[in-house]
Each structure stands twice: as C-alpha cells, then as structure tokens.
C-alpha cells in the first residue's frame, strides 16, 4: 500500500502516538505528506468562532506532542486545529479539501451502557470518507 497524502485526526487519547508512528511508517515509503488535525467541537449554544481558551490550549498541547512523536520517527507533520460543530463531517471535508488518499484514525476501547462502542465519529468517517480509511484499535488488556 502506498499513499501520498495522509490525514491523521487526533483526539488526545493514548492511541494517538501509535497512530502517528504508523502514519510515519506508511508515509516513508512514498515520502507522503502527513496532516494531523484536531477537531475542537463547539456546542451550538456558542458561536462557531468562539475562543475556548482551555480547550484550545489542550488541543495545541496534543498537536505539539504529535509533532514531537513524528520527529522522533524522523518525519515532519503538518498540524491544524479546526473548530466545528461535529467532528465526523469536518474530518471528511478536510480529507476532500486536501485530496487525502488515506485517513488513519485511532480509537481506544470504550463502553457505553456496558456495550462496546465506536462512538459516532468513526462510523461517520467510515461511511462517508472519500478515500481509504485505516482504523487503529488500541489493545486494552
């Protein structure tokens, strides 16, 4: 598998590090470009362009950390912080806009009401992505 433009959405979970390492490994073969995006979801009670300082600070920390992890792998990534109402459509739109040929996402094991759940973002991206999607599911013993 060879990819030229890889989009990596990150959320600040423990799966992020492994996902970016995997992205770097996949990108090295074809010298692909990697974009890392953090989607900050804004509730509808607030305007979309509102600045939520603590959330922005957290997002910037996550993106800085991702840059360091990528540098350790000997790769350079471009980071972007996006504010949106919903993460799923924003990731898909970003992939369309940047003409990405791979979306690489990481998820951690989570349960909602006792049932394993992928949440709403991953299924949306799987259903609507304009390119290949690789889902990294972190093993939780």
């Amino acid at each position, binding site marked *: 598998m060879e990819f030229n433009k890889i989009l990596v959405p990150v959320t600040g979970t423990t799966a992020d590090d492994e996902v970016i390492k995997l992205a770097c490994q996949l990108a090295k073969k074809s010298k692909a470009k990697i974009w890392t995006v953090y989607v900050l979801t804004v*509730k*509808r009670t*607030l305007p979309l362009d509102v600045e939520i300082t603590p959330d922005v600070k957290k997002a910037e920390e996550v993106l800085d950390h991702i840059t360091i992890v990528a540098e350790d792998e000997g790769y350079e990534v471009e980071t972007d912080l996006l504010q949106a109402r*919903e993460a799923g*459509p924003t990731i898909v739109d970003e992939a369309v806009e940047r003409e990405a040929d791979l979306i690489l996402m990481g998820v951690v094991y989570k349960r909602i009401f006792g049932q394993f759940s992928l949440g709403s973002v991953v299924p949306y991206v799987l259903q609507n992505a304009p390119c290949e999607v690789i889902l990294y599911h972190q093993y939780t013993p």
Partner: protein
Amino acid sequence: MYIIIIGGGQVGYYLAKALLDEGHELLVLEKDAARTAFICNELGSVCIRGDGCEMATLEEAGAGRAEMFVAVTGDDEDNLVSCQAAKHKFNVPRTVARVNNPKNETIFKKMGIDVTISSTKIILESIEEEVPTHPITHLLDIQEQGLEIVEIKIPPHATTIGKTVKELPLPAGNTLSLVIRGQQKPFVPDEDTVLEAEDQIVAITTPETEEALETALRGS
C-alpha cells in the same frame, strides 16, 4: 445571522437550503430520524433530531443566541408552543410561524408571535387576484393595527356607478386611497370623485367592515 428552523419537512428543508445559500448559520430541529439523516446528507450537519417544543432541546440548539426562530411544522400547536418558548424563555428577537389553519392566525398574534404565514391564505389571495369575478382582492394585512388593504373592482352593472364618493355609505374608519381607471394614471380620490364602471379602487378597511365597504362601493 443564527436562525433555528423547527420542522424539516418540505418547507423546512427548502427554507434551510435557501438560507444556507444566503450565508446564514442555521439549525433545523426535526422529530423524525430518517428525515434528519436525509437533511444532514443533503445539507451537511445542520439538522439535529429533537422536539422543538422541549426546553432542553431548544437549549441544546442554542436558542439563547438565535436571532430568528422559524416554526414551519405541519402542526399549528407545535409551531405556536415552540415559538412561544423561543420568544419568552430564550428571548429570541424575531419569531416566524407557519399557520396551517388560517383561523389560528389571530391566536398566534395574540400570543406574541411576530410574523405569521398562512399558506392557505396566500393561495386564497392569489385566487382572488387571478379570478376576475372575485369582488375583493386582499393586498396587504397590517396586523398590528387590525387593518387591511384591499382592491375592489366596480362591475359594469353596479348601482353605484355615477355616484360621488361622498354619496357612498362608507363604513366608519374606511378610506379610499387610490382609483385605477383604465389606462389613466392612478389618482387619489376626493369626495367629488365619480365612480365609473371597471374602476379598481384600493381601500383601507378592517376585516369586520370589509363586507360593508364592498356593498357601499358595488351597491346591493
């Protein structure tokens, strides 16, 4: 401008589409899951599933910062309740409601809804305008003051032809504001203006005296 639309039916969907094209930020609240998914697929994530009459849903939708609230469901009760909640609980400056039964329009007004739109009434007005035998055409409602602007055509057989305006038994509070006569330039009538056949008269009246005005102008 942030606009909330209650009801994602045909009216709500096309309204949302038009407002998005104009660059407004908007949200559609729709009860039906399949319809919500359809709107999200077509227009992006601008629709959430929920009941527009529930406070919690309106709170989540950000009604507190909405500048306009439009209720266009097929149910007058839902439109009224959601608009009232938006107006009085969330202080939305402008509320617009679709009224399916024209008889409910007065209730909506009394309840403080800013703008009411009755599709039945609009179609009726178009019919009045297009059908030449219809004696009265409603041109405009001035709802705040309970007035309406109407156009009345004087038929060739009217008993009032040849009479001056001062001879007509016009109901109190009614004003004749314009006479359109054939190819002549429209003019403002005075008390000595003589009525002629085929005159089109624009008058200010009230719903209560509308019939009396028609009788005064066209004769019994």
